[in-house]
């Protein structure tokens, strides 16, 4: 006979405000096999856990049902408490009274009835629970970091400095990411490249870091501690060992008019190119789409001028397989191209530019060497307008969220403009100034008070060109929505930060979740900000949401600590939620008939064939056998099995049928 303990949590008032917790506990106390039932204010608190522990010991409980929040929140907490009291942790189940009941329904009898049902389901289930032992798996102590922007660089260095190996892959020819494009950084106005490039060099020289640029993740299999990643190393068309980075090829390449990605289209580059002078590695790649040789079959100027004969036109992409124990995703973000704002004329008027383009104009390494000159005629703009929220906070354009970084960089842009163009006039159209952060508000105030930037509260309706000026039509909502028309020389749009193109595909390769905007989802919004739902895969930087540099760096260090923590163990324990094939006494040995449908169902190749032999060593039959190291516990094989010979621990047939029956018998 089971002796089950039921522990109903009020969660302060989160549950008890709509659910009659005492009644739930009382009703559960009357169920067959329930030896103890109680409700309590905070079950997850120390006294609450002690309540469970002492009940286990005093009443000799064989199973525990905690009716509180989502098991995704506190299942480990309560299982650990049970284990500490000597009960197998897998004899503990949780009924979700908070997220699935009290928070989503009104106070009333029906809600309490539902809570009772949810408890009853699990009381009946737990009767069929079995003691299970955790599974031990080895750990490969190498980390894979995807993305070589500031977040990836920081994560790589932090992990490498704990003594573990890191493989860093970057899809572009150089690491550095968006930060390498920035001119100066808020709120200190220190030069972005000056603080970044030393880190880039450190990555390249670190003995524990292997860097592959121009490389992308092809596929991933395995699980925490034991991932196998395939990496596509895109052909650079050069032999990196021979190339010295002398630059002869890039100087002589006849194709010189390709818009430079690094300069956001404001500068030009050649077909064989190094994205920027401080690139790491400082070796060129050939852009095959624009290279004359690949288009017309002739040219080869680079090959002729190369002193070390390093050009390889016939080089192919390579697929490389690596084994890693943990992964940090630091793929960053991209900015929305504002051509979806036809009323602002981006793409039509050359002097309407994006914030990132302005960074390049303001950067000493940029196309104008740091002078603010407008793209159309190279003139210094005397009047400049910055538009905040160009795309952000705009559900009509599909982006309801705030991109977070724009308020600050706009203040910085306006400030840089005022510093560089004396006597120039700058205007910022904004809706709210979001300057939460250390020294941020003070920074914005400085732009307004000391540098004389004109902040106008209102959104611009449209921009059109007239006689070489950009006419900006806005209002001042603080003055009864009075029309404001500015004849500007240049307009900068603070375009929304959005997820990378292909973020969805990457998430699918990694089996991690993502939000509706394709930013990768953290495991818990507050308590697990760098973890994903997939154990062993962590997030850093703006791939999770738009982030500024300090936040990206902090997140990267956080992810690195998680990886280091993982690598501090030689073996990992995994939940024993895995499939097993039943075994019986001779002469049948198993009800498995060896059809191996389960093999075709298994996405992990975790099912092997096992020979069943009689006492004389003669083969009776072949049956399926689950490799516990590979099985991830999805249970697809269970639904496939015709003879119900394979079952999944924790979600067995007995348990699931019992849940359905227990629910409906009294529902």
């Amino acid at each position, binding site marked *: 006979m089971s002796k089950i303990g039921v522990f109903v949590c009020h969660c302060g008032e989160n549950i008890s405000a709509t659910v009659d917790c005492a009644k739930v506990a009382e009703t559960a106390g009357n169920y067959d096999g329930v030896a103890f039932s109680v409700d309590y204010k905070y079950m997850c608190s120390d006294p609450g856990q002690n309540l469970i522990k002492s009940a286990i010991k005093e009443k000799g409980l064989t199973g525990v049902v905690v009716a509180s929040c989502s098991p995704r929140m506190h299942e480990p907490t309560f299982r650990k408490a049970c284990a500490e009291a000597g009960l197998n942790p897998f004899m503990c189940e949780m009924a979700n009274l908070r997220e699935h009941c009290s928070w989503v329904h009104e106070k009333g009898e029906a809600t309490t009835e539902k809570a009772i049902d949810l408890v009853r389901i699990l009381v009946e289930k737990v009767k069929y629970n079995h003691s299970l032992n955790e599974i031990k798996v080895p750990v490969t102590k190498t980390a894979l970091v995807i993305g070589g922007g500031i977040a990836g660089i920081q994560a790589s260095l932090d992990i490498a400095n704990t003594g573990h190996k890191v493989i860093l892959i970057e899809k572009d020819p150089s690491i550095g990411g968006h930060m390498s494009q920035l001119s100066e950084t808020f709120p200190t106005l220190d030069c972005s490249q000056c603080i970044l490039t030393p880190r880039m060099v450190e990555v390249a020289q670190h003995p524990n870091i292997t860097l592959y640029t121009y490389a992308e993740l092809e596929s991933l299999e395995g699980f925490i501690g034991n991932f196998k990643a395939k990496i596509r190393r895109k052909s650079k068309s050069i032999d990196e060992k021979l190339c010295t980075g002398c630059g002869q090829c890039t100087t002589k390449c006849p194709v010189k008019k390709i818009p430079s990605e690094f300069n956001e289209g404001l500068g030009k580059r050649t077909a064989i190119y190094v994205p920027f002078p401080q690139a790491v590695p400082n070796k060129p790649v050939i852009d095959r789409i624009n290279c004359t040789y690949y288009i017309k079959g002739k040219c080869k100027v680079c090959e002729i001028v190369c002193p070390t004969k390093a050009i390889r036109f016939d080089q192919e992409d390579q697929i490389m397989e690596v084994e890693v124990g943990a992964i940090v995703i630091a793929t960053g973000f991209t900015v929305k191209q504002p051509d979806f704002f036809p009323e602002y004329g981006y793409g039509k008027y050359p002097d309407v530019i994006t914030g990132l383009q302005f960074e390049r104009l303001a950067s000493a390494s940029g196309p104008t060497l740091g002078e603010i000159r407008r793209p159309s005629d190279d003139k210094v703009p005397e009047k400049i307008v910055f538009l905040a*929220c160009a795309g952000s906070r705009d559900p009509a354009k599909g982006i309801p969220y705030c991109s977070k970084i724009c308020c600050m960089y706009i203040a910085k842009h306006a400030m840089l403009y005022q510093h560089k163009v004396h006597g120039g006039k700058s205007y910022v159209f904004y809706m709210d100034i979001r300057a939460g952060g250390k020294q941020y508000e003070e920074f914005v105030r400085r732009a307004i008070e000391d540098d004389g930037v004109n902040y106008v509260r209102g959104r611009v309706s*449209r921009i059109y060109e007239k006689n070489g000026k950009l006419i900006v*039509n806005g209002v001042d*909502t603080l003055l009864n*929505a009075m*029309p404001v028309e500015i004849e500007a020389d240049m307009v900068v749009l603070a375009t929304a930060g959005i997820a990378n193109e292909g973020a969805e595909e990457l998430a699918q390769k990694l089996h991690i979740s993502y939000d509706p905007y394709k930013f990768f989802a953290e495991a818990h919004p507050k308590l697990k900000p760098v973890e994903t739902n997939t154990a062993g895969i962590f997030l850093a930087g703006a791939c999770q949401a738009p982030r500024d540099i300090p936040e990206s760096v902090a997140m990267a260090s956080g992810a690195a600590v998680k990886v280091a923590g993982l690598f501090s163990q030689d073996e990992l324990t995994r939940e024993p939620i895995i499939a097993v094939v039943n075994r019986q006494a001779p002469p049948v040995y198993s009800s498995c008939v060896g059809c191996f449908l389960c093999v075709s169902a298994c996405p992990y190749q975790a099912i092997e064939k096992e020979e069943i032999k009689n006492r004389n060593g003669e083969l009776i039959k072949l049956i399926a056998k689950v490799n516990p190291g590979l099985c991830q516990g999805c249970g697809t094989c269970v639904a496939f099995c015709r003879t119900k010979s394979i079952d999944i621990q924790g979600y067995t047939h007995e348990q699931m049928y019992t849940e359905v029956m227990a629910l409906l018998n009294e529902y």
Partner: protein
Amino acid sequence: MSSDTHHSGIAGLGGEVLEHTEVKVSHCYQCGKCSAGCPLSEEMDYPPSVIMRMLQTGNPVLEDKVLRSFSIWVCLTCEMCFARCPMSIDIPKMMDFLREKSINEKKANPKAKEIVAFHKSFLDSIKFTGRLYEIGLFVDYKTRTLKILEDLALAPKMMKRGKLNIIPELIKDRSGIAAIFRKSNKKNKN
């Protein structure tokens, strides 16, 4: 057991707006893009975004001011505000509702006298002939507003160019048209 209780009633004029036009005034976050693009906002006493704000307050005094405002009459329903609104708020539809309510409650702004008169003359013209009779409209409008001299030069010029029909075009089923007016007006006054 309750289903979704999210769309509980909003009190006051904002609630009526929601009920009749599906426009939820709380959606507006006061960016002002509507006012910035509105071709007539400078002629308005309250630009569109200010109207939205007044409705958001739920203050009966401000709501009354909205119904008595000149803005709702000078609005041309050019749809520019709706086209560019980041929150996709159908302001023109809301304006239609406010105008109708303003008339029904006899709160139409005195400055809008000519505009209201023109609309009334226009509808009267259709009511009796089924189609717009431009001369009739002019005469009717002039009598309503006593702006006899304005535009007087226009008529002969139009006439000369064959742009005015001296005799109204009458449709056959005039009683049907009258019935439409009667039925939709009855509902209106309730």
